[in-house]
């Protein structure tokens, strides 16, 4: 059954939902990247929680007008409205009062969510009886979704994704350097508004699929995961979209195959797994590679210092230095340097002298910035440059030509 789900073989509706979840994951990952880079990720949590009273009130209003209250589009519109009000509250509190944004987020999030829960309780006591399904907005449930609803969600997710891609340049500029963006005639207020509009769209589309409690994870985990792999904004955006899309697809497919499992938590756990893998194993910024790099750097420093000490006939006190020299066959057991050791030591001295010249000369700036006390200059300079440096080596200061 899981294979059927993965290959979209569980029928038309389940397929639509899975595609919708994938598009939602991509939109959230791509949009969330700018939220993360602008350091406003938590605003999305307030937005998501602020949807709940709107969803509840929309249900009550629709029942009052004689409907059955379960029209997904109606419920989502209600959610969007109250989320919009919550967003206004956050931005008003943080710009017009002395409250910082985090305090405003905390206040708005809890008050709106509390209010929403009260409304859900009221609904449960109502005669309409068919309130069933509203809890699904908390953690997401795609089981038994109507075909039209699935189409609406998939199309909205695709539109949101398109909007983010259209606005990627202003969003990048505002995230990196808002003052410059503003000086070049872009309204930061409007860019932020667009960013929040994207968050609102992702949240509303995601309400039924991942649920309001976990939306924030969909916006934050993919960009944070992507950041481990690259130093370029456009690549963070692309990888984040892929991570989000993959998690959405796999999560929705799994949930379709195992109907009792709520969709949201599965999607979040899958993106967390990708995050954990990146955290540990990413080549540059990952924890494991940082640790290995640090250790190898430490060993190279010890070896270098040991060689310099040998060259200058100084005693070596540190056990690690001595062990490394011995293991490399550069000194004998009694600490006397071998021929190889002597040669390496002399080379290290030469390299030090070359580096001193390179670091003191502005024209070698690009090489000088790579100075780490270890790197062989021959790997950085051209043969001509090296010749120039060596020519200056043979003419020490104060000695006339």
């Amino acid at each position, binding site marked *: 059954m899981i294979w059927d789900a993965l290959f979209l073989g569980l029928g038309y509706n389940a397929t639509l939902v899975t595609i919708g979840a994938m598009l939602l994951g991509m939109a959230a990952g791509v949009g969330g990247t700018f939220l993360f*880079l602008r350091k406003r990720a938590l605003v999305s949590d307030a937005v998501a929680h602020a949807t709940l009273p709107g969803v509840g009130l929309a249900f009550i209003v629709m029942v009052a007008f004689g409907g059955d209250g379960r029209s997904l589009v109606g419920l989502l519109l209600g959610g969007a409205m109250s989320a919009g009000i919550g967003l206004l509250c956050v931005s008003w509190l943080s710009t017009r009062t002395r409250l910082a944004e985090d305090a405003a987020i905390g206040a708005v999030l809890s008050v709106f969510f509390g209010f929403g829960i009260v409304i859900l309780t009221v609904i449960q006591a109502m005669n309409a009886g068919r309130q069933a399904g509203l809890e699904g907005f908390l953690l997401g449930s795609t089981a038994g979704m109507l075909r039209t609803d699935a189409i609406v969600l998939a199309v909205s997710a695709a539109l949101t994704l398109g909007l983010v891609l*259209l606005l990627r*340049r202003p969003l990048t500029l505002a995230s*990196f350097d808002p003052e410059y963006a503003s*000086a070049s*005639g872009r309204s930061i207020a409007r860019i932020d508004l667009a960013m929040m509009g994207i968050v609102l769209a992702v949240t509303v589309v995601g309400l039924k699929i991942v649920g309001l409690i976990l939306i924030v994870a969909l916006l934050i985990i993919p960009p944070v995961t992507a950041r481990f792999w690259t130093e*370029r904004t456009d690549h963070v955006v692309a990888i984040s979209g892929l991570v989000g899309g993959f998690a959405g697809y796999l999560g929705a497919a799994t949930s379709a195959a195992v109907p009792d499992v709520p969709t949201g938590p599965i999607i979040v756990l899958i993106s967390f797994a990708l995050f954990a893998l990146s955290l540990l194993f990413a080549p540059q910024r990952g924890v494991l590679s940082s640790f290995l790099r640090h250790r190898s750097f430490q060993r190279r420093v010890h070896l270098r210092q040991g060689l310099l000490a040998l060259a200058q006939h100084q005693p070596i006190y540190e056990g690690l230095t001595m062990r490394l020299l011995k293991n490399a066959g550069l000194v004998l057991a009694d600490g006397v340097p071998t021929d190889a050791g002597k040669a390496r030591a002399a080379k290290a001295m030469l390299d030090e002298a070359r580096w001193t010249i390179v670091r003191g000369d*502005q024209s070698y*700036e690009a090489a000088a*910035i790579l100075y780490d006390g270890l790197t062989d200059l021959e790997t950085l300079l051209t043969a001509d440059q090296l010749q120039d440096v060596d020519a200056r080596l043979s003419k020490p200061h104060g000695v006339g030509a």
Partner: protein
Amino acid sequence: MSVELATLNGQQADRTARADSPLAIRGMTVSYGQKPAVFSVDMTIRSGAMTAIIGPNGAGKSTLLKAALGILTPLAGTVTVLGKSVAQMRDHIAYVPQRASVDWDFPTRVIDVVMMGLYGQLGLLGRVRQTHRDQAMACLNRVGMADFATRQIGQLSGGQQQRVFLARSLVQAADLYLLDEPFAGVDAATETAIIGVLKGLRDAGKTVVVVHHDLSTVTDYFDDVFLINTQVIAQGSVATTFTQENLQTTYGGRLAGAQMDALSGTLG
């Protein structure tokens, strides 16, 4: 009657001055809360000159620049660029913010930052072509940073970061350059590189305005000075305006006698 006429003549003269100036500010007041940072400032920048905005810490130098560009909303005041509004003249203005105003761990490379200077031209969807990349590389070359094009910006020294910011403004090919403390905390090599580029711009007929803090270099670097301490103290050419008396007024008692003596050789 004659007083009215004089006033009318004065207004006419001011209108002409504003229409000619690449940056003219009238009656600018900016406040944080109830305390004005910049109060009723008039400023007329001379075309094709290098002007230093000078004043003590908290005198409103950066604030004035930001308000002129619309980054901050002033309480009062008008700004014109060659007689037109700033909004109409955006394409002719390049701004270099303070280095400390951005997060240097941002995932972006040197070349990408310079390309941001072309976003205005490219619009939302314009494709980045080889000519754009060539322009960006040429500007990096002018500030001596071409070798660093693909480095992540966080790997650069402070001075190198400042030169990248300058390159981003150069690629805009503007006529008016506004720089906020470009020499703050940079190495000597960077200072030489930046002043060389700025003087080159001036010699090509561009107008350069710099928020500056190092009094000892003013005479070497600039043509005009604008002395400010919340209010305007004096403005004009370095020779006539950068005087001991004006500096004492600008800095109050904050400029020690020893600093004054050291400066006296360079004063106008």
